[in-house]
């Protein structure tokens, strides 16, 4: 146990400045423009005329310390030891010598890291922990992402899509990450109410907190066999899992009924159209490890149909806005069902309140 007197706390993160390469320090805040000389490579040009080359490589997000050291070896060899990561789990190597770009890309290829994800391309899939580490996961995250990126890697390493393509996966509706505003969102869903463990609940949970946790007031306090516990009005449950997060005696994982839903047309950028939520495309697909063929097939189809039909710069949602949802469902062959019609708060704002009906 370390000496309390010497114990350091609240020091905050290391200062970023010590990690900036000299070319960035010299041109900080004085960049003039950038270009994409080839897929996965950026060149930023400063007012000074200095050039900074960035090589972006995809990673599985889950990294062993052994692999991180290999990545560091490459940064030492080509970048003076400077590198960064993006908000979408990509690795970025920062180079000042253009002669190092080709050898770095070759070394990355040899080490199994694809270079891409810049411009009109698919970037890496933002994702959550899934069955590797999460208690409320309705599906795995890394497995689906790996299976899907194996299929879509060509969309990562090229730049011939109509616009940017941002795909994200969350393993439950807690949605760690901005899944709900993605071109394509893959969302793990539960479909059965929590199963109350009446033995355990009084010991590990606070009753008022559990009751108050339910957004639809489906949880009521009840006395069972002399124990203060709760019951769930199952017809009111929308499977959000908030009660399970505050009370571990209410698990709602269900191997038969948990699965994946697919959402489309969201974005966070303000460019052209305003930021928007993703909308439901496919209510349910089964968990089918290790390669989730139903999910991979559905997402690949969505990407292909959008890529074939959208105009330059049209993100998924902008394309759908132009052609209309009826045509989207026809073109993708997805069935429109009762589940597609919202029935939570403000549902009526999503109803078509005009006769502007596109063919």
């Amino acid at each position, binding site marked *: 146990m370390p000496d309390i007197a010497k114990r*350091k*706390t*609240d*020091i*905050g*993160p290391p*200062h*970023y400045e010590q990690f*900036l390469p000299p070319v*960035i320090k010299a041109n900080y*805040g004085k*960049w003039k423009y950038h270009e994409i000389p080839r897929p996965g490579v950026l060149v*930023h040009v400063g007012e000074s005329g200095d050039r*900074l080359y960035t090589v972006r490589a*995809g*990673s*599985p997000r*889950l990294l*062993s*310390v*052994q692999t*991180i*050291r290999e990545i*560091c070896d490459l*940064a030492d060899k080509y970048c003076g*030891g*400077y*590198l*960064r*990561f993006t*908000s979408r789990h990509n*690795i970025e190597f920062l180079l000042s010598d253009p002669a190092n770009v080709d050898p770095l890309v070759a070394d990355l290829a040899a080490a199994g890291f694809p270079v891409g994800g810049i411009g009109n391309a698919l970037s890496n899939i*933002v994702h959550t922990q899934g*069955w*590797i*580490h999460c*208690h*409320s996961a309705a599906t795995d995250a890394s497995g689906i992402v*790996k299976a899907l*990126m*194996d299929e879509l*890697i060509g969309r990562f390493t090229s730049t011939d899509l109509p616009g940017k393509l941002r795909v994200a996966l969350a393993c439950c*509706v807690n*949605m*760690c990450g*901005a*899944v*709900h*505003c993605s071109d394509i969102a893959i969302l793990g869903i539960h479909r059965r109410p929590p199963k109350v463990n009446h033995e355990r609940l009084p010991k590990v949970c606070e009753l008022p907190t559990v009751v108050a946790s339910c957004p639809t007031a489906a949880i009521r306090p009840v006395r069972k066999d002399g124990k203060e516990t709760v019951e769930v009005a199952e017809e009111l449950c929308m499977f959000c899992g*908030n009660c399970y*997060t505050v009370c*571990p005696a209410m698990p709602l994982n269900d*191997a038969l009924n948990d699965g994946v839903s697919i959402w489309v047309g969201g974005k*966070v*950028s*303000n460019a*052209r159209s*305003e*930021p928007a939520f993703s909308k439901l495309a496919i209510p349910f697909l089964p968990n089918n490890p*290790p390669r989730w063929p139903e999910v991979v097939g559905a997402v690949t189809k969505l990407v292909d149909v959008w890529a074939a039909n959208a105009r330059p710069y049209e993100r998924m949602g902008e394309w759908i806005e132009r052609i209309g949802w009826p045509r989207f469902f026809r073109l993708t062959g997805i069935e429109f069902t009762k589940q597609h019609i919202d029935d939570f708060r403000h549902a009526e704002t999503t109803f078509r309140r005009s006769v502007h009906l596109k063919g």
Partner: protein
Amino acid sequence: MSDERPTPKLDELETGPWPSFVREMKRAAEGNAMADQLLGVLELSYDDRVGHWKHGGVVGVRGYGAGVIGRYSDVPEQFPEVAQFHTMRVNHPAGWFYKTDALRKVCDIWEKHGSGLTNLHGATGDIILLGTKTDSLEPAFAELTENGFDLGGSGSVVRTPSCCVGPARCEWACFDTLALTYDITRHYQDEIHRPSLPYKFKIKSSGCPNDCVAAIARADLSVIGTWRGAIEVDQAAVGAYAAAGLDVRADVCDRCPSKCMVWDGRALDIDNGACARCMHCINAMPKALRPGKERGACILIGGKAPIVSGAMLSSVLVPFMKLEPPYTELKELIGKILELWGDEGKNRERVGEFIQRVGLGNFLEAIGLEPKPEMVRNPRENPYVFYEEYFEEDSK
């Protein structure tokens, strides 16, 4: 382990062109029993299609109430090495910049005290050190702080602030996202490490309206760079884009949401008063156009994922704020919000949901901000208006 306990389903995910997380787990497993048994737990999940983790039980380092996610296996007899498998969230450097010596240090610490598995990075931005035992938390923390790293946030705290690459490598940054993020992270150390709020409070900063860290969707307080005045235009460079094959009329002017620009083949004429500052034209022609010279940020509030009462995007709180050290105006604003919501918010009610409950007008009044038309898409349509003040007959 693979000899005694085969992992055929995971092995399948070692094949294919995209880098494999299973390979990462197996690499870590070569010298680490926790990583080894994690493979077994995951294969079990792939067989029976449910997760095998339980939450609950408060674990952490002394004096902090955040930064460690307690995690326990629900099959501890089968996999005793991961019976406890807690995650440490380590506050990343702003913009996720590293030098390799610092990153190698983190690797050494985690090889010694944890599973040897990480996420670079977690959704909020932290370095995620995945899986260790309760007794290893304090020694790991001591070595992290000894090497200049500290834990980030978890639970009902100000979460680890994060930002885009900003002026370090982007010509569009309208304020110094890294400097602001570092400054407020230091400023809120107590609020990050010791839970004192109704629920989580996330602060994210993007240097321009492209919003590369998804601040508007994920942050309770979203700081998004913007500018005032005219877009800077290099007409010759616009001409060069046109000459190189860009259809300036169709792909730039016609895609402008405010239809504020005209290209006649020689010059690009922008009606800056009508410009919504969306970034499209600048994105399309980075050599020719730049954000205007008077730069700052729009401050928005309330973004969140669905839990509990539905997903929300942040909405405008301060249309334009200059952001220069020591960021007094922003810190005072955040202070008022945390105080009000900290006092009045319900357990697990995010600030966006709190505003929904009390009304944006009342919220503004309580934190001392004037209502502005920029805050709404349109004025109210419903005629049920609350009034606290009204006229009374003169009693004289």
